[in-house]
């Protein structure tokens, strides 16, 4: 079945540093979405990409549909960036199934 491999599973950053999260897809996907889940459990959509890159403040995401991967870059990490980040693949053309990766737990410390 469709698989989304997300890495790393956990990440610790000091304030002001930068890093990247990655998702690999085992099958062709038409789009990728990135979410952040906060401590209250709310899932907030960060990006939706069908191709290329998008940037929003200190966050930047890229999607390579041919090489089957997507990245989320966090620049100048802040305490409020802490949470669990999920990528999701799909749906494929004509489909309605959006499959999530296993998440990256990010902790930003002073």
């Amino acid at each position, binding site marked *: 079945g469709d698989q989304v491999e997300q890495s790393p599973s956990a990440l610790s950053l000091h304030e002001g540093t930068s890093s990247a999260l990655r998702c690999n897809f085992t099958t062709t996907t038409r789009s990728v979405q990135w979410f952040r889940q906060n401590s209250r459990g709310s899932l907030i*959509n960060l990006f939706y990409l069908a191709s290329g890159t998008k940037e929003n403040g200190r966050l930047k995401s890229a999607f390579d549909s041919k090489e089957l991967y997507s990245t989320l870059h966090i620049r100048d990490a802040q305490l409020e960036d802490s949470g669990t980040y999920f990528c999701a693949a799909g749906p494929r053309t004509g489909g309605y199934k959006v499959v*999530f990766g296993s*998440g990256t737990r990010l902790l930003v410390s002073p």
Partner: protein
Amino acid sequence: ETAVFQTPNYHVTQVGNEVSFNCKQTLGHDTMYWYKQDSKKLLKIMFSYNNKQLIVNETVPRRFSPQSSDKAHLNLRIKSVEPEDSAVYLCASSTTGGTLYFGAGTRLSVL
């Protein structure tokens, strides 16, 4: 501002009872989803509806049944809960193939 509304926020029940969760979206979307998030935070799709029609039905126990009266509502009934049903159930909506918007979730505890 949340535009996908789930009730209840929490529900505690005993094994064998029936529970129902409600979900309503005011975004005008035509697709709605139920996801289950377990204690390890893994998100697994359960069902997906498009314009009131069941489109995705993952391998879930038969005691789970989704119900959609119109494209703005998607409820979930669990006929006889089991301990392994304890989880957070997340409802979401989207345009066809578009960005998912999630509700705040319903946390179910089965004693």
